[in-house]
């Protein structure tokens, strides 16, 4: 079969750090950088007994993002705990939104280089807190934890799997970036990690049901996203041509 008989199915989960003055659940400044563990308090370091208080501005910014991407805004929304153990997550859970996100069923329009316009649907936008950072270098085999970023507010925008090429994925991400920058909810500095994407890719013969997908996490440049998607499409087609289906795999980049 020729490569033209295949199509890629691509969906993006885009994390944008909100540019509110303070963190999502405490009054620490929402700033990038700083000496490790200097911008912290009992709440964002999950001291025993500390409790989260939701920053109203975070809700306001997320609703703005929802309105700017044609979402409907839920009047009844709640936060949920996502429990897992990892040293960058001091509470041992992320406070995210599971079954009642703030924003749902939106869309944005993109334009590709050949002038075609296409609507990419947005499943949901929800609010959550960012994790701290682990530093693995030069500490004699030990890792160090920096919690300055813990509690930075994020919105996660989940698209439907509506993109069919790396170019469409890139255009979609550029569109989101320009919207979030324009409405001033996020500075979207990809090199600082304030805009980053998890990319889901699967390949199928045109007309077939969805194939097995792979997830590439934490991509934070357009170039790497385009290269990774193109590489992944080729790899999956090769696997199918070889008679093997694509095994699910997770790649963590950056």
């Amino acid at each position, binding site marked *: 079969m020729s490569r033209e008989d295949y199509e890629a199915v691509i969906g993006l989960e885009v994390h944008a750090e909100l540019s509110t003055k303070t963190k999502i659940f405490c009054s620490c400044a929402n700033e990038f950088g700083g000496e490790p563990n200097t911008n912290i308090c009992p709440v964002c370091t999950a001291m*025993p*007994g500390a409790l989260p208080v939701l920053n109203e501005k975070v809700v306001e910014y997320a609703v703005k993002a929802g309105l700017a991407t044609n979402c409907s805004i839920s009047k009844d929304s709640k936060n949920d705990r996502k429990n897992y153990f990892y040293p960058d997550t001091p509470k041992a859970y992320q406070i995210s939104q599971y079954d009642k996100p703030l924003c749902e069923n939106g869309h944005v329009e993109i334009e590709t280089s050949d002038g075609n316009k296409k609507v990419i649907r947005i499943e949901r936008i929800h609010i959550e807190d960012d994790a701290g950072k682990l530093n693995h270098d030069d500490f004699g085999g030990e890792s160090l934890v920096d919690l300055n970023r813990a509690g930075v507010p994020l919105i996660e925008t989940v698209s439907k799997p509506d993109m069919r090429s790396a170019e469409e994925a890139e255009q979609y991400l550029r569109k989101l970036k320009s919207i979030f920058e324009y409405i001033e909810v996020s500075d979207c500095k990809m090199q600082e990690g304030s805009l980053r994407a998890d990319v889901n890719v699967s390949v199928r013969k045109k007309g077939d049901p969805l194939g097995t997908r792979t997830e590439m996490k934490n991509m934070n440049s357009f170039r790497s996203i385009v290269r990774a998607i193109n590489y992944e499409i080729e790899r999956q087609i090769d696997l199918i041509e070889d008679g093997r289906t694509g095994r699910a795999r997770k790649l963590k980049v950056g």
Partner: protein
Amino acid sequence: MNITELTVHELQEKLKNKELTISEITKAYVDRINEKEKDVQAFVTTLTEEATKQSEEIEEKINSGEIKGEFAGIPIGIKDNMCTKGVKTTCSSKMLENFIAPYDATAVKKINEENIINLGKLNMDEFAMGGSTEHSYFHKTYNPWNLNKVPGGSSGGSAAAVAANMVPWALGSDTGGSIRQPASFCGVVGLKPTYGLVSRYGLVAFASSLDQIGPITKDVRDSAMLLNIITGHDEMDTTSANIEKKDYTKALKKDVKGMKIGVPKEFYGEGVQPEVEEKIKAALEEYKKLGAEIVEISLDVAEYSLATYYIIACAEASSNLGRFDGVRYTHRAKDYNGLWDLYKKSRSEAFGDEVKRRIILGTYVLSSGYYDAYYKKAQQVRTLVMNKFNEAFGKCDVIITPTSPTTAFDIGGKLNDPLSMYKADICTVSVNITGLPGISVPCGVDNDGMPIGMQIIGNRFEEEKILNAAYAYEQVEKFRENHKPTFKK
């Protein structure tokens, strides 16, 4: 005059009349702790030296007019699951053996603002899980009425310290009965306020939707006074109720004219120690004389409360205790091989059996595939129990039940039988599930001289009614005049 036998309002009176000084009061308590702590072992950390120093400072400031305050210089004890800046907060766990909180819990802050003196941190079941204080990592606490018996739990250190006159009053916390049941076992007054009345900020979370801080005191007036101090809206706790602050001592009236007292038949009979039922029935007769009307009510969902409680409490605990992972302020295993081994070894070494049991239960009921069958269902039953109580409060002002089906049990008696330990919570857990306020007041003693507790439950934010009912009864029962702990072995 025996200073440590006095209530706080009596101490205030003596201070006002200059019959006593602040440093005399603190000294009396320090002496009492030195005398009785070896038998009772109510404390995890004593602060006798710090308290002595503090009492002198406060006395000076009062004499120079720098500070005033009706509670300045009164001592207190604080359950060891409330964060106290600069002083260890262990939750009676090896996990937090050396944890010193960098901040004060809101309730503690309010205590400090009154210049009340902290005599120490009080023993408890590890992470407040248990009903006997036998699950403390450090040591057991012994019931001052009979040192072979448990003081109840989880606030067993708080109740025993008040009963033994080692502190004039104490703060406890109540997730399923942890203030009321030990108060009942130790012959003191324990109040669990309405969920949201007292800020939980700085209370180490066990089950966030059930936990409340409350007073453990010698009498009902002290209970109302301590409640006055610790209530108030707190921006640091979003579940803290934004309601007007009240003076609860105004509710302390000697009669209960026109009050309707609901008596739910499901809380009496089988499983209840005969003397407990007798004494509470006798108390109901007293209430009639004081002007109340007794109404029989039904709370037939109460029997499901226990299972519902354990599912919800364990589920929340399994998530809340995740942060004790060996990475930061907790115990960390000495030798480990990578991150997962660090987690596994640190948690295996530092959590006690009861805590592990509940984390495992909680993780199970939250896991995918079981969530709907257990956790979701428990939340639905919780709504049914709330509806039933709402219905009941259409017919009565307060509800009276035993606080515990029995008086204090023997040390070691239920330690190897978790289910029977859980069953002892049958009368108290509905109050936490529904978020209602409940108070336990002493109601005579059983044939062995062990105190009996009567529980008075009120509607949401109607602490005044239960305080009124408790106070009126206390005035005729005169428990403190008739009964004293014997410290017998």
